[in-house]
């Protein structure tokens, strides 16, 4: 069908349609983020261009095209309120390419279209850089090359399939060189100039406030928050607490953070007031790009974070970037299994973590008063276990709790008793503060899924968690207490996704759950995919100057290995052999003739370039040589002439030629 269609089209039309197809391939991925009217304009204009090509009518005149494109530009301005910046820029480029297709007159315009397409292909990476995008990019490059190639033919044009093969050949020959350039080309750490504000409109990730519902929103997202690789052994699942923002301020509804970055001197002081012991776990985190500036570190480690971006540390042990990096970031850190945090904090300082909003939750405060008495009688720990016991009895862990009113703590503790980690953590901290114990909410992630394929832990947004930290006196300092663990201990031992009640076993949800079972083949596939994605992120998307330096030095070390040194000469030999093979062995007839000519030259008969066997024969007859030699020579020439120019003798002429050659000597 395609072949028939192609045969009906003239060469020019088929060429233009190929170019249109390539342009469409470039524009298609942009439809996801272009304004709807821009996508529509692009589609209509491409269809128009296709109709013009098929019907062979003329391109639209400039007086029609110019207002239309100006109108489109105005549309971009109205939509984005600016013409600068990334999003309007991409929209403008897409429209420009479309209108340029309608205004193609010279060979130059063709190159403009193809170059524009290449650039537009690049802009798509603002939005997506997955493996699929890369595959799509490869196909599009081949199509663009085929279109570019097509316009270079002057006479014979091979069929489309042959041209596509030719373009693919160029691409695959170029691929090793491209990979070498990718690895070895000196990299500079961007950005080179200030990025426009919309450069990193990525995911928001974990927030620095906690209002009802903020955690459960995250919990539904399977997006990867970060990946971790432990250098040696990894801590058990229930100790994987990834500390993020610490929330100490409560206004009756929302928890928010107050921590401030430490000065150098303060950091030194904090370090003295922080006792870490046990054998450390050192690990490296690859944080997915987010717009916020928090780092997540395994509890509990010091302020020593090794990253290419500047980081800071707050008086509440939060780690943060000086400015949001807006890209994938790697950092390494070490955590200790046992710690005592700020045991010698002064009571004045601790006041900050005792504040409660006035006029809320009378019933909760009443319970807190009872806890205070308990604390005075039996110690801090008794108060803590009392609350945890309360949670253990009759509280339910759910992602969809009932909405709470003004006195949220009262309703949660005494009426609904349905909640999620944020409810438990905030109620616990509230009670502790009411009982006179300094306490705060710590948010972050809990757990992580070990990928057996590449040994990375994947921490997803659904692992978001909130827990409490209580100051238990000078003997202990700040202690982590996870009230959720009292309600749903399996939440801590495994990951959240598995804690939630089973969904319907049928349909898509059932399918998705299949993948959670680690032993099913789907589960294995999921791990392989995840490992592939991680490798992609680590090696393609996040191959930065530092990584390059590291890799090249490793490569250099590997190259110094004697085995590789031995391989290189072998490679060179193989290439030489290949070259030899490609130098075709000379035709035996030609070789014999060349030998004969050299012999004649010794007798003083130099063959002129235009001379054939017949004229040579005449000259040979005049030589003063024994007659049998002359006869052999003329016989040779006659046979040579018959082989080369005659119908060709059948009875092994080459052997006869060689024997005659011998006789002439």
């Amino acid at each position, binding site marked *: 069908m395609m072949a028939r269609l192609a045969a009906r089209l003239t060469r020019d039309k088929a060429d233009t349609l190929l170019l249109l197809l390539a342009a469409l391939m470039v524009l298609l991925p942009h439809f996801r983020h272009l304004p709807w009217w821009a996508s529509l304009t692009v589609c209509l204009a491409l269809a128009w261009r296709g109709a013009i090509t098929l019907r062979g009518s003329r391109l639209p005149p400039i007086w029609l095209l110019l207002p239309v494109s100006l109108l489109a530009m105005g549309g971009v301005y109205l939509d984005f309120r600016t013409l600068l910046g990334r999003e309007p820029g991409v929209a403008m480029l897409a429209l420009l390419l479309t209108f340029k297709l309608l205004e193609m007159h010279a060979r130059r315009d063709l190159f403009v279209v193809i170059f524009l397409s290449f*650039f537009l292909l*690049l802009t798509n990476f603002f939005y997506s850089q997955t493996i699929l995008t890369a595959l799509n990019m490869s196909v599009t490059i081949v199509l663009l090359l085929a279109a570019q190639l097509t316009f270079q033919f*002057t006479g*014979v044009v091979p069929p489309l399939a042959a041209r596509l093969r030719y373009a693919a050949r*160029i691409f695959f020959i170029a691929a090793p060189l*491209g990979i070498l350039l*990718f690895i070895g080309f000196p*990299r*500079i750490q961007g950005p080179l100039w200030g990025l426009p504000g919309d450069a990193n409109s990525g995911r928001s990730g974990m927030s620095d406030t906690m209002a009802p519902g903020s955690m459960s929103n995250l919990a539904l997202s399977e997006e990867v928050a970060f990946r971790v690789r432990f250098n040696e052994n990894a801590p058990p699942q229930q100790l994987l607490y990834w500390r993020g923002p610490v929330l100490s301020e409560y206004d009756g509804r929302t928890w928010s953070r107050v921590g401030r970055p430490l000065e150098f001197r303060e950091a030194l002081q904090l370090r003295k007031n922080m006792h870490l012991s046990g054998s450390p776990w050192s690990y490296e985190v690859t944080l997915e790009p987010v717009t916020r500036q928090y780092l997540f570190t395994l509890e509990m480690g010091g302020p020593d974070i090794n990253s290419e971006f500047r980081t800071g540390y707050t008086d509440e042990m939060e780690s943060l970037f000086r400015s949001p990096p807006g890209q994938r970031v790697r950092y390494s850190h070490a955590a200790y299994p046992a710690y005592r945090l700020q045991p010698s904090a002064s009571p004045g300082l601790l006041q900050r973590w005792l504040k409660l909003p006035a006029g809320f939750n009378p019933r909760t405060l009443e319970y807190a008063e009872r806890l205070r008495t308990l604390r005075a009688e039996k110690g801090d720990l008794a108060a803590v276990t009392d609350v945890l016991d309360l949670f253990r009895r009759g509280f339910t862990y759910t992602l969809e709790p009932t909405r709470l009113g003004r006195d949220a703590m009262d309703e949660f503790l005494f009426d609904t008793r349905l909640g999620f980690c944020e409810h438990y953590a905030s109620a616990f901290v509230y009670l502790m503060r009411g009982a006179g114990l300094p306490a705060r909410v710590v948010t972050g992630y809990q757990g992580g899924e070990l990928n057996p394929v590449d040994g990375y832990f994947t921490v997803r947004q659904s692992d978001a968690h909130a827990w409490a930290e209580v100051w238990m006196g000078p003997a202990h300092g700040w202690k982590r207490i996870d009230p959720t663990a009292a309600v749903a201990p399996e939440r801590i031992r495994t990951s959240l996704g598995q804690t939630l009640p089973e969904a319907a076993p049928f349909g898509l949800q059932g399918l998705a759950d299949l993948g959670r079972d680690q032993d099913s083949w789907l589960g294995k596939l999921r791990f392989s995919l995840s490992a592939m994605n991680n490798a992609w992120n680590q090696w393609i998307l996040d191959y930065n100057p530092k990584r390059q330096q590291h890799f090249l030095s490793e490569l250099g070390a590997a190259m110094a290995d004697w085995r590789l040194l031995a391989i290189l000469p072998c490679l060179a030999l193989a290439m030489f052999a290949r070259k030899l093979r490609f130098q075709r062995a000379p035709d035996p007839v030609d070789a014999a003739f060349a030998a004969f000519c050299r012999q004649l030259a010794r007798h003083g008969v130099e063959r002129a370039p235009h001379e054939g066997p017949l004229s040579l024969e005449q000259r040979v007859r005049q030589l003063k040589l024994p007659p049998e030699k002359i006869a052999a020579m003329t016989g040779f020439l006659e046979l040579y002439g018959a082989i080369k120019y005659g119908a060709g003798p059948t009875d092994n002429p080459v052997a006869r030629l060689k024997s005659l050659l011998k006789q002439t000597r």
Partner: protein
Amino acid sequence: MADRWLFQLKDAEPGEVQLVMRRVFILPTRPGLAFVGLLLVMLVGSVNYNLGLGFVLTFFTGSCAIVDMVMTARNLSMLHLAPGRAQPVFAGDEAQFELHIRNSTPRSRYGIWLGFKDEGEPRQAVDVLAGSSAALVLSRPTRERGWLAAPRVRLFTRFPLGLFGAWSYWQPDLRVLVYPQPEIGAPPLPTTGAASEDGIGTVGLDNFSGIRNYQPGDPMRHLAWRQIARLHPDDGGQLVSKNFEGGAVADLLLDLANLPPLLDIEIRLARLAAWVLEAERRALPYALTVGHRHFELSLGETHCGNCLRALALYGKEAP
């Protein structure tokens, strides 16, 4: 001359010439330079926005351009070039140089432009498929008589992607003999006093006495083509011959020395050329003396060619 050294311009090479890689030169075209600019912009964009895949795209397309460079050079290299035939022409006509391109490699070559080096942009394109050969004719106007050697030929190609242009020079061992331009409005054929062996009569237009039916044995030159053309075969059309009366013909002796010496030598040669052609047309045997070269009384293509050749080369170095 710098050009000569840089591009290894050689004198005419006899026989078939193979374009080895050393004879092929290459530079980016204007789109190629624009492409370099595009690559730079893409690289800066990738650095600035930290686009890992952007680097991949930039480096891969850059590599494609490099592959294109090699392919463009290889599109020209290892071609065999050979001169073809060249027919003599009259001055003022276009000299036609036939050239052969042979491709003995398994790679088809597309989009090869040929032209004379001193004429700027090549005008003719040719494809040489794998294992085949192609012939093409380059023409060039002639002005003066004598030998005209083929000018240096420039081969140029942008295939496959048009980002690079490769070229090579070749001086074909080919020349065209340019006859003098026959004088327009030349005086009538000169009659000499010298009588033919039959003795009587002079040659003139008057001797043409009409046409008659063709008879076997009539010389081809006497066929009355114009009349033959008018007669439709269905109307009993047949061959007719011109009839010449008298049969007494004074010998036509053309001699450069007999022309007024005051005339420019070129005009004299032109007049002789015109007369030779006129005599051929009328099928009158003629003899020609140019300087010390003499051609006996005769008629026919070979004789005509010899005479014109002598006129073309008069005063020029011997062929």
